[in-house]
């Protein structure tokens, strides 16, 4: 039986570097996708991804398992994204200039199945940031409505509404195809 995330984080707080490696292996890909699909820029996404993990490392001494480790991790990620958005102003609301893989689908080079994914990816990018964040937290982080609300520092109704709107728009994009 694998050790829970919280136990691994406590072990790392006490100096066990191997515990962090296990924890990182569990969450690296999901967090990376969450960040990269939130900012739509690979370079910025990688920078933010590294900063988030550095923040986890720095905050290890203060870590207490009051909630799931995943919620704590994505809360840190959300805070970094908010800071990033504030620095960029509203530029992230725009869909211009994305270089995310799959963000520029060329329908002529893809088969029909790929066209469906391309539409989905385009619809995901077209979501408002808060709705997209709620969807990504739900899909990548596996967070519940309450955990999304906690991670994004909002109430559950707002989190639920954002996620619901995101799903509805993605469904609409898929059905249009």
């Amino acid at each position, binding site marked *: 039986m694998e050790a829970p995330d919280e136990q691994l984080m406590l072990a790392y707080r006490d100096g066990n570097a191997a515990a962090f*490696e296990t924890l990182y292996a569990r969450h*690296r*890909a999901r967090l990376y996708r969450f960040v990269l699909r939130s900012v739509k820029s690979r370079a910025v996404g990688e920078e933010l991804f590294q900063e988030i993990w550095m923040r986890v490392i720095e905050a290890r*001494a203060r870590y207490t398992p009051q909630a799931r480790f995943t919620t704590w991790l994505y809360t840190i990620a959300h805070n970094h994204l908010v800071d990033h958005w504030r620095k960029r102003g509203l530029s992230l609301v725009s869909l211009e200039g994305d270089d995310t893989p*799959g963000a520029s689908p060329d329908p002529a080079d893809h088969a029909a199945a790929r066209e469906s994914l391309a539409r*989905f990816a385009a619809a995901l990018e077209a979501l408002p940031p808060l709705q997209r964040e709620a969807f990504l937290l739900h899909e990548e982080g596996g967070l519940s409505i309450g955990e999304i609300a906690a991670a994004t520092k909002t109430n559950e109704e707002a989190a639920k509404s954002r996620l619901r709107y995101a799903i509805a728009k993605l469904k609409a994009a*898929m059905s249009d195809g």
Partner: protein
Amino acid sequence: MAEEHDPKLSRHYRSLEPIEPPPALDQAILAAARRAADRPHAPLVAPAGRHRWYYGLAAAAVLMFAVALTLHMERERPDPEAAAEPAPQLRLERELRGVIKRAPEAESQPAAKSQAPAASADAERFAPDPQAGAREANRLADHATATAPQERSRVAQAPKPVPQATPASPPAPQAAPTDEMRSRPAPAQRAKVEAEAKAAARREANAGQEYAASAAAPSMNRVVTPAAPENPERWLERIAELRSRGKHAEADKELAEFRRVYPNYRLSEVMRERVEGR
């Protein structure tokens, strides 16, 4: 929650291009995590490593310094009376022990020194100190009986150089502290000595034969004589009184001694008649 979860939509999302962080980024993060794990957290408490002894040593040193300083201050705290005159007493004690010679004072009075070298040296050494005088008097008390006149003349030699510090002769610069030292022993001793000095002076002025009787309390006289040496005028008055009482032999002896000690002293005509009996 059912409205917020669509399996088909989730499958579409999972079907997107699987993107993962590059290995270099993984290595950088893991290396940072290992470095952080090797470092201790912020040292909120004293480190438990090899430098622990350093703090204990520093604390012990500070403590020892504080204790030593406190003890030193306790020892050095002066008595209000004694604090006013520690140096003279210390100097007198050293003089009595022969540690310090009063060479400057002696050099300032070469004439007197040449006149009575041995006697003045002894007198200078012992005269200013009442306690020393008392010790000397105690020693002499054993001999103070029928030999009173000789004893008296011996004692009288003690203050001889001292009167040179009186106004009759120009006081040497070093004479001032000597007088001050003489007038400033410990308070209790000072009162006692002064009272005894007055009484002894009266006794000496009265009569020579009474001096033998006063040997019953010899320490008083021995203390007084060196401590309050008579000046030339008083000495002459005493000689004149001896003369007037018909004790011419004693008067002649005293006068000869006076002239030996004060060879340059100019007697007035009146005093000359009184002390010489002419």
